[in-house]
């Protein structure tokens, strides 16, 4: 039996094993080294960021987490980055879920991001968990006109009347933007059809790879920002990470006496290339900064990004190797097919 015959009769379990290794080995390598692949944001990911960035701090953002643990690998990093951008910007976040396990996803992502990195945010004033509501698109259709009908209490059983940030919320029209992380039905499509289209509200969608092709036709008129699968999540994550870093550096520079527009330019430069902050502090331009301010600036510039904000970028490594394997297998499969056909084998 020659090589072609062996490949034609290859047990598919060898392919499973190869795929397992192609995904597993990069995870271990990236997990130990901490290195991730660079991400170049596409206009869709940038648009998603710009929509939230363009709103005034304190804007009301409805965040619908319509996914479950089965798709957490793709959508969890998006949810994390959405919350991080809103928390850093100072938006008010209203979490709801149309999937039963979405309530757990809300608790998981808020405790990881808000509990871990924005503990100053006050529940009920800066963010609120309204929990899961059954009814699929009927929920959206109803809250377009009457929010309290479906959400008389939050997830903890507190009446919405006793929650300060619920004051003035009577319908979906009272929100400034909608953010949806979706794994299927009900999800992105329903938010487009029943909320964003009739209300003309900005809608940002983070969805699974399976859904993404169905969502592209809605961009940019009905959907303003679209993160498709883990690639979209990684791009958005890198934008938010750079922005948060530059915001922190801007604060450090301004508290050290560096004024606009120099401070903004330097913050953006140091966020992109942290090592430049170290050399800049030794230059004459930094003479006005105190030693403590310089130390703080260098610490902020060189501090590693917390691991939970790199989840999507870490998962791009296995993507690369697994896709290379798949391309190789497709080529090999075609070679085997044509070679077999030339010999008069099965067609």
């Amino acid at each position, binding site marked *: 039996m020659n090589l072609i015959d062996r490949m034609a009769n290859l047990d598919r*379990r060898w392919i*499973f094993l190869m*795929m*397992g290794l192609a995904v*597993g080995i990069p*995870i*271990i390598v*990236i*997990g*130990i080294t901490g290195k991730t692949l660079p991400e170049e944001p596409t206009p869709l990911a940038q648009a998603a960021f710009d929509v939230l960035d363009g709103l005034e701090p304190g804007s009301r953002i409805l965040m619908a987490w319509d996914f479950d643990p*089965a*798709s*957490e*690998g*793709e959508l*969890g990093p998006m949810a994390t980055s959405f919350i991080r951008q809103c928390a850093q910007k100072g938006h008010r976040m209203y979490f709801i879920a149309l999937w*039963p*396990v979405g*309530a757990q996803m809300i608790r998981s992502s808020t405790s990881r991001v808000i509990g871990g990195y924005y503990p100053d945010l006050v529940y009920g004033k800066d963010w609120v968990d309204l*929990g*899961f*509501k*059954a*009814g699929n*698109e*009927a929920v959206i*259709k109803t809250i377009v006109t009457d929010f309290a009908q*479906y959400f*008389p*209490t*939050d997830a*903890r*059983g507190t*009446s919405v*009347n006793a929650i300060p940030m619920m004051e003035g919320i009577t319908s979906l029209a009272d929100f400034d933007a909608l953010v949806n992380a979706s794994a299927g039905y009900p999800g992105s499509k329903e938010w*487009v*059809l*029943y909320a964003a*289209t*009739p209300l003309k509200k900005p809608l940002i969608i983070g969805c699974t*790879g*399976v859904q993404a*092709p169905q969502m592209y*036709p*809605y961009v940019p*008129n*009905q959907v303003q920002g679209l993160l*498709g*699968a*883990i690639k979209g999540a990684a791009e958005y994550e890198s934008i938010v990470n750079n922005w948060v870093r530059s915001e922190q550096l801007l604060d450090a520079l301004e508290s050290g006496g560096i004024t606009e527009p120099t401070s903004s330019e330097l913050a953006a430069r140091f966020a992109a290339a942290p090592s430049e902050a170290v050399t800049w502090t030794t230059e004459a331009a930094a003479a006005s900064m105190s030693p403590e301010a310089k130390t703080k600036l260098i610490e902020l510039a060189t501090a590693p990004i917390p*691991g*939970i904000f*790199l989840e999507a970028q*870490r*998962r791009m490594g*296995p*993507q690369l190797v*697994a*896709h290379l394997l*798949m391309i190789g297998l497709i080529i090999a499969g075609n070679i085997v097919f044509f070679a077999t056909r030339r010999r008069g084998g099965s067609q």
Partner: protein
Amino acid sequence: MNRQQLTLLSIAGVFVILLVVRAFTGNGFGRIYVERGEAAFVKVEVPVLDAPDGNVESEGVRSMWVDASSDEAVDFAAAESPRAGWYSVKPVSPRVYFEATISDDALQAALSSPFESTIGSTDLGTALETWRLALLEKANAEAAVQAEPSVEINWKALHAAGFDRKTSITVTPGSDFKTSLGAIFDAAQAAGDSDADTTVVVADGRAIVTTTADDVVPAIGLSWPRTIGLWLAAIFTLAIFSFLYKDNPFYKIAESVVVGVSAAYWMVIGLWDMIVPNLLGQLFPGFVQGNLLPGLGTADPNWAYLVPAIFGALLLMRLAPKGQYLSLWTLAFIVGTTAALRMVAYIEGDFLSQIKATIEPLYQEVMNADGTVNGYSSFWASVRQITLLIGVLSCLTYFFFSVEHKGVVGKVARVGIWFLMITFGAAFGFTVMGRIALLAARFEFLFDDWLWLIDPTNQRSVAAAVGGLF
């Protein structure tokens, strides 16, 4: 079971036993640590300062539950104030546990070192804080590059024993930290405070000043329920993966558990998130507010909700031996309303909006920030619009079966097929990407949370993770 299967099973069994033994020795792996603490609250009456000058209005008093160690608790709690307390558990990083374990020596060494600060005449709270900060500084110096220990005053226990942080005392510190602490409490007892025994407990990288050695000491320890949950998650993940080899009982068990748990979860969620607040809460608001959902606002019963209640009951008639046809009324209602809802939304959101988005000028002009035309972007935007138009028309032609696909129509339909194939390819590519991401997430769980081979979120040190292997 033949001899070969028995041999394989035996090898697998030995491997699993070794895995479990290794997991629970030393730094091991696959464990979840939690911090146990006491949450104590006391009901106090706090004056409300409404007047601009800060004066308390005559009736401006409100009752509230506050943390027992807070200043409000000290200032406004009466002797008979009701108290509530329970143990709280919160997950902590294994790093905290490991590093805490190695810093006890630093704390013991610091406690035996000379106390060099001065206290003099002050109140008990300030004296203990001075002592605490001095010990913390000394312990951190002793710990050097190791973890930083923490030093805490257990005010809950001290308050309960009768110590008041505002008691005025005069302290002459002793030679070391332990004797100095004794001198502080001796002074407090001389000033009229409690005569309860006090001590400093060192455990899990913390020094805690409290009244008894074994009372309300927060401790970091292994959480067996959570650890078992983690191992079950790992085992079920492997059981599902085992289907890739071939169908087997482990896969079937895992599959059945998923189905059963999901069904039960849906039922419970449906009851508490839908039927109780949205149906019973409308029909019997007083009862629901009083017995089931205290946060629900009370209002008059809304008897219109009897209609969905009756429809819901009719749907259950499918399970009855007779009268199943009654459930069809509910089904008809559901189908009718869903169709109507979707028709309107699809016409507006999919049909009209998509037509509008397609009917755009073929030449798209993209402007620069300074108002000039960006030729490069305009060119590609126009190419995109032309491609969109060709794609829409050719795909519609392919699905137009009233004309035979011959000649020009056939060629255009063939272009439509190419567009469809490219679309399906893109969809397949996205699907593959999504599935690989899910597989990566499961592998991350196995390697990170369970086996501790990697530590991307800095839960443990790399040394501990690698140490877990050997």
